[in-house]
């Protein structure tokens, strides 16, 4: 038996290990530890293909782990990961290739909550703003409270245009929740509070930090 193929194979494996994406290695370990081998392999293949088109892989791994934790079947997990790839891809097409992971995730959530890709595209000019993800979080909130998508987009675009901070977007949610508890309809509360925040910001006011 010749030793040259053995040594050659070993160096090929070592080379592959050395230059393989380290995050992918770690993620695969989590998948194979928590999922059955068939589901883990299917999810890993989806994660790899998503990575090759530049989509973030961590949210996909987390989606699979969420499914496992919630007792979902392997098929359901693979379907959910595939659906998330589709939503992230649609969100990226709508907002541009240079948006961050948080913004992509929130945009995908906005699509899930009823916004259309065409509507999301209206926020594209604001994507370089520091508070862009905060604005998208505000959009998801408005949609989840039943505010019509067109009105939500108009308000969030106006707030981004007025350079509101992420903290101010968060305070919008808190203020609207308070108004709703007092009986104000969500759409009305949002309109009033958003205009007030924009006015306050133009007059030089600072946003406040809030926590979830």
């Amino acid at each position, binding site marked *: *038996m*010749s*030793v040259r193929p*053995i*040594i050659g*194979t*070993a*160096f090929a*494996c*070592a080379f592959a*290990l*050395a230059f*393989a994406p*380290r*995050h992918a*290695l*770690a993620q695969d*370990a*989590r998948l194979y530890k928590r999922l059955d081998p068939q589901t883990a392999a299917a999810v890993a293949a989806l994660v790899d293909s998503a990575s090759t088109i530049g989509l973030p892989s961590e*949210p996909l791994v*987390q989606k699979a*782990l*969420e*499914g*496992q*934790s*919630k*007792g*979902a079947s392997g098929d*359901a*997990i693979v379907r*959910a990961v595939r659906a998330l790839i589709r939503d992230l891809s649609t969100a990226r097409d709508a907002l541009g290739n240079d948006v961050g*992971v*948080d913004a992509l*995730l*929130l945009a995908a*959530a906005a699509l*899930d*909550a009823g916004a259309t890709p065409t509507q999301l595209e209206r926020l594209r000019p604001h994507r370089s703003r520091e508070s862009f*993800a*905060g604005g998208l*979080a505000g959009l*998801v*909130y408005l*949609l*989840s409270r039943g505010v019509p998508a067109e009105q939500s987009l108009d308000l969030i675009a106006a707030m981004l245009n007025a350079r509101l*901070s*992420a*903290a101010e977007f*968060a305070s919008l*949610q808190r203020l609207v929740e308070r108004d709703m508890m007092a009986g104000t309809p969500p759409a009305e509360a949002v309109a009033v509070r958003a205009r007030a925040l924009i006015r306050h910001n133009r007059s030089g006011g600072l946003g406040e*930090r*809030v*926590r*979830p």
Partner: protein
Amino acid sequence: MSELDPRLEPWLATLRKEPSARPEARARLAAALREEDARAARRIPSPPAALAAAIAVVALTGAFWLAFERWNTPERAGAVVELASAQFVLHARDARSVSVVGDFNDWDPRATPLTRTGDGVWSAVVRLRPGTVRYAYLVDGTEWRADPHAVTSHEEFGRPTSIAYIVPPEGP
């Protein structure tokens, strides 16, 4: 094969004749050749030894990268990640245990238990990276609940998932 130079023909018989040498010199030459063969054999590992060496190379490379991955956190790599404190609170009067499960703990139900702080109030403070957080509460290890204070909640895998956005700390 090329033809022999005609000028060498007179020397052909001499050239083909085995060189004469003393028996001691021949023995020394044979011993030297045997030693060289033995040295060459020692330099080439046996197949089991080569296999063991190959496995060791692959295992050491893999172990190195896994160790590096654990060691090389963004903070250590120089990225400034300012963590924010997030308080998770759930009112569950009759619960025996509550945990928060989400993206920040790989959806591990055992990773972040809440402690009972008052009259049916359970809470935990978690240091998180700013950004989007997806999570849910798990009551008594079986009942999934959305966070009533979250930005939004929806069903994932037939159970609730909440979304929160952790605001990045503002600069000085």
